[in-house]
């Protein structure tokens, strides 16, 4: 309507314009000029309005229903999610002839094979972690974690798990990080510090975690509060157990854990775990207090432990983007019982020493706080403390040294994560794991994650 009026007025204007000077007197001319200016202004306003409407329409999404898109319609589209984690560090520490923890037998990798940065110094390439994961079909899911180190590819995890059993139950088979404790199932890239807590090193060796080859059954109770029960049946070849050529169970683990929210701002979880395994001729060194020599002993028997863990996270309104406080604590108690045999090849006077009974009771734990003080920045403080506990060697009690020592360590760290996928960390630790040695350790570390990075558990 308005448009047609405008068009006719324009036509009039054009006609007037062509014949203007001949027809108009001075007054008419001024009036017509004013009218023309007014019309032009109106027209321009309307034009601008139309332009805006066109722009708005053009920016709208199509209203038709979308056709689901098949990405990369080739067999490659079914390839597992691939994730790669690159780690490296510079580590400044004291040179130690024999690193370890006073009163605790060396676990896992022993002295020659410290590929996890444990006791090495200088520029270090840590393990590169390669993860492949995908649904196998509608019933199973699988995951492989490889740790690539010089001259070796370690299979850290390789498991399949059920996804369709239902009723809160899940079964997992293969090699997997045991569900005991809290930090045990974390991979190194997820650690809050550049090294595992001292108690995990004491319990499971430099790796700082216990992996099972076997079967895990877990069940989440149908409650409003989270409650998960789990049982693991495993081969038990990893420290503190050893490889034993036999049928049946080598290690049994069980855990119960629970947790929930307190208001919008806080969440917590707590758990209790038990692990029992057996060792056969597990070799370690003891100090002969009389002759001052090393005695090589081989332990055969049971190793049983309890682990208690607790975690509290707080963030303003439960939004951890800019600020978050994480308090975490774990403790353990381990009892080992059995026989200690003398390794004659390495020990000259086995007969005199009289090794036989072996019984140790040890405990320890750690407490840590990590605070995110601004977006991407965190600071953390961790106290480790262990106790060499009661060491009993039967008839050899007088002969073998039985240190009464509380190994401890204090660690401070600051890390910066410019994105979810990269982290740079500076850490200082005052390490008194060894009696009469205080080691000031500095670590600068990077942890970078490439590809489809799997989400982390709470």
């Amino acid at each position, binding site marked *: 309507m308005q448009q047609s009026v405008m068009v006719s007025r324009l036509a009039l204007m054009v006609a007037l314009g062509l014949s203007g000077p001949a027809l108009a007197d001075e007054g008419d001319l001024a009036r017509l000029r004013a009218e023309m200016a007014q019309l032009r202004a109106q027209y321009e306003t309307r034009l601008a309005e139309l*332009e*805006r*409407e066109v*722009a*708005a*329409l053009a*920016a*709208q*999404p*199509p209203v038709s*229903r*979308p056709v*689901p898109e098949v990405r990369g319609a080739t067999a490659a589209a079914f390839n597992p999610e691939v994730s790669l984690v690159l780690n490296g560090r510079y580590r400044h520490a004291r040179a130690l002839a024999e690193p370890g923890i006073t009163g605790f037998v060396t676990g896992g990798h022993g002295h020659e094979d410290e590929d996890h940065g444990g006791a090495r110094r200088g520029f270090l390439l840590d393990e590169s972690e390669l993860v492949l994961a995908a649904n196998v079909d509608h019933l199973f899911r699988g995951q492989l974690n490889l740790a690539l180190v010089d001259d070796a590819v370690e299979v850290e995890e390789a498991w399949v798990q059920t*996804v369709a*059993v*239902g*009723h*809160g*139950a*899940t079964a997992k088979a293969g090699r997997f990080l045991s569900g005991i404790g809290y930090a045990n199932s974390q991979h190194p890239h997820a650690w809050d510090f550049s090294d595992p807590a001292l108690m995990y090193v004491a319990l499971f060796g430099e790796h700082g975690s216990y992996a099972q080859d076997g079967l895990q059954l*877990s*069940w*989440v*109770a*149908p*409650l*409003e*509060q*989270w*409650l*998960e029960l789990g049982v693991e049946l495993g081969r038990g070849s990893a420290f503190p157990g050893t490889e034993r050529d036999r049928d049946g169970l080598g290690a049994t683990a069980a855990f*119960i854990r*629970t*947790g*929930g*929210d307190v208001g*919008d701002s806080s*969440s*917590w*979880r*707590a758990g*209790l775990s038990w692990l029992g395994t057996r060792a056969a001729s597990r070799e370690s060194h003891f100090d002969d207090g009389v002759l001052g020599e090393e005695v090589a002993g081989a332990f055969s028997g049971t190793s049983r432990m309890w682990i*208690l863990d607790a975690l509290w*996270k707080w963030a303003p*309104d*439960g*939004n*951890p*983007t*800019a600020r978050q406080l994480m308090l975490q604590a774990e403790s353990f108690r381990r009892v080992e019982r059995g026989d200690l045999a003398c390794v004659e090849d390495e020990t000259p006077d086995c007969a005199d020493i009289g090794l036989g009974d072996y019984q140790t009771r040890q405990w320890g734990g750690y407490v840590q706080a990590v605070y995110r003080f601004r*977006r*991407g920045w965190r600071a953390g403080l961790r106290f480790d403390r262990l106790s060499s506990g009661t060491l009993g060697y039967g008839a050899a009690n007088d002969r073998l040294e039985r240190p009464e020592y509380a190994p401890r360590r204090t660690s401070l760290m600051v890390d910066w994560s*410019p*994105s*979810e*996928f990269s982290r740079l960390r500076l850490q200082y630790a005052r390490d008194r794991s060894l009696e009469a040695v205080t080691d000031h350790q500095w670590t600068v570390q990077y942890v970078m994650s490439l590809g489809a990075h799997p*989400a*982390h*558990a*709470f």
Partner: protein
Amino acid sequence: MRHRIVAALLAGFLAAPAVVAAPGPLALACEPEWGALVEAIGGERVSLQVATTARQDPHRVEARPSLLAAARRADLLVCTGADLEAGWLPVLLNRAGNPRIQPGQPGHLMAADQVTLLERPARLDRAEGDIHPGGNPHIHTDPRNLARVAAALTERLVRIDPEGEAGYRERFARFSADWRQALDRWRARATPLAGVEVVVSHKAFPYLQAWLGLIEVAALEERPGVAPGPAHLQAVLRAIDARPVRMILRTPLDDPDAGRWLSQRTGLPIVTLPYTVGGSPAAQDLTTLFDATLDGLLEALK
């Protein structure tokens, strides 16, 4: 000592509230907007747990124990999808032992699958920041998308709980009618917003912009999810220098610093939109969410 700890733990479990038998299914909504939609369609028949509040960033929530417990029991999962929940939802799915809410099941409803996504990246590279391969996931800021998701949600509820069908369909019909009216009302109110140029903090509003005809001239975040550097902010300042930009849009969760910086230099008003249900005192439900959003935008135009 050990026995006392065990006893204390057991006492804790026994004191935990027992399962309340609800008449219909239990729904777990990842974000408040989907919670509100489940309430609108499901009514009192559906028990609802919402994983995040309006004050929590759905990109960064963690797979908390309470969410694991909810995922274990849920019959229906209603989330945004498009990788918005990539940091926590996979953990819930893998660890809850609940096949009903796995992908492909009727109990697994991703809102982003029901609409056309905008800003699908042409190039996938983490150097571009926290980008979502499928497109921008913040779809609920266009109310027309909510209507589409409501239709899909109704069908899912009917499949999961056929006994409640009549109620679901009735509530959906009522919701659709109300929503059509509201859309007309909002459209009429929003006329002055068409073609208005804005700067956004995070790319949280492409769907709102498309609906209202707002034109996004620049984003303060150079890369999604990464805090902007000074060079980028200077570039934004230059880019908007000669243009008739009217306001800076942000969600309540966006870092306010960059917006404040730009506002001080340009005098542009900062408009904090509620973004989701509960994001401002006025945004109490889905309808008032868009009322409040338009209030904020129109106020800044004055």
